[in-house]
């Protein structure tokens, strides 16, 4: 037991406990379940946060299917597919990271956290290349927007949704990278043990959620009406 826990124990009248156990919980298992539940409740709010944008997308795609298909064709399906593979792989490395935390393999946990971060950064890098292409091709909504005359008004709606939805998603990725950095630091410090790995588990839930959002964004934005095209 660390000196802190022993000194802290005397404040309890002699009952020492794991340093990570907060006083309003009976034991680490209950604390861990509460943390997991808390993150899930937050993710439910995120489902509705993104859900509002998906509902908007549904309404406008239903209204202007031809314009949405034409606009969707302007997105790079190769880069989008690569990004999908990158994110799903990052979810794998994250899950393997949680596993390493559960088995007390500290160096392996750090390796998987690093891999997750590298893949997340790769996703953001590819995304910024795509955004650059959109800028150069005048597909950014605003005064400089250019598109075939027949669909120009409604294609702008598609691209507005594209930038807002992928932009919000990218913001979540950036936040996720920050969280993973903190997790990496916690792992490095030795705070994460088989008894206490709840921060890794809960960060993993956040990361997987961001992956799930992209799993829906990819087909809805990139794969509209691709049949009959090369």
């Amino acid at each position: 037991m660390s000196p802190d826990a022993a000194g802290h124990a005397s404040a309890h009248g002699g009952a020492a406990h794991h340093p990570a156990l907060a006083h309003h919980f009976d034991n680490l298992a209950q604390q861990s379940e509460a943390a997991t539940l808390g993150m899930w409740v937050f993710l439910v709010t995120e489902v509705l946060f993104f859900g509002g944008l998906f509902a908007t997308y549904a309404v406008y795609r239903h209204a202007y299917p031809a314009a949405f298909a034409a606009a969707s064709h302007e997105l790079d399906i190769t880069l989008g597919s690569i990004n999908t593979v990158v994110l799903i792989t990052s979810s794998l490395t994250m899950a393997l990271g949680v596993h390493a935390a559960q088995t007390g393999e500290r160096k392996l946990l750090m390796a998987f956290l690093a891999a997750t971060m590298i893949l997340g950064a790769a996703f953001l890098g590819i995304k910024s290349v795509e955004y650059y292409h959109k800028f150069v091709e005048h597909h950014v909504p605003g005064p400089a927007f250019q598109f075939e005359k027949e669909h120009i008004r409604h294609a702008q709606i598609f691209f507005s949704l594209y930038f807002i939805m992928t932009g919000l998603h990218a913001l979540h990725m950036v936040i996720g990278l920050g969280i993973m950095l903190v997790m990496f630091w916690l792992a490095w410090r030795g705070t994460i043990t088989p008894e206490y790995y709840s921060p890794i588990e809960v960060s993993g839930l956040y990361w997987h959620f961001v992956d799930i959002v992209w799993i829906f964004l990819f087909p809805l934005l990139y794969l509209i009406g691709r049949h009959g095209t090369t």
Partner: protein
Amino acid sequence: MADHIVPTRVYYTIFAILMLCTLLTVLIAFADLGVFNIVAALTIAVFKAVLVVLYFMHVRYGTRLTWAVVVGSVFWLGILLVLTMGDYLTRAWRTYG
């Protein structure tokens, strides 16, 4: 903590299925299935999301309370999408300009 430790081969298997589904969704996009293109795309996406939720996010091995919260989110999202689209899809008097 008495959490169930999922064997890594489960994670690798789920990953392989997710990769296959990604390939499938891209390939199907290039086939002309008419209105079923969107049905197929969303079905595959939902299937992938369910796999991530159950196995990567450990809901399959978690508490019933967690499961109820997840189902609740799907239900609320369903209300949002169904009632919103129900409104727009039944506006026979209005055409989009």
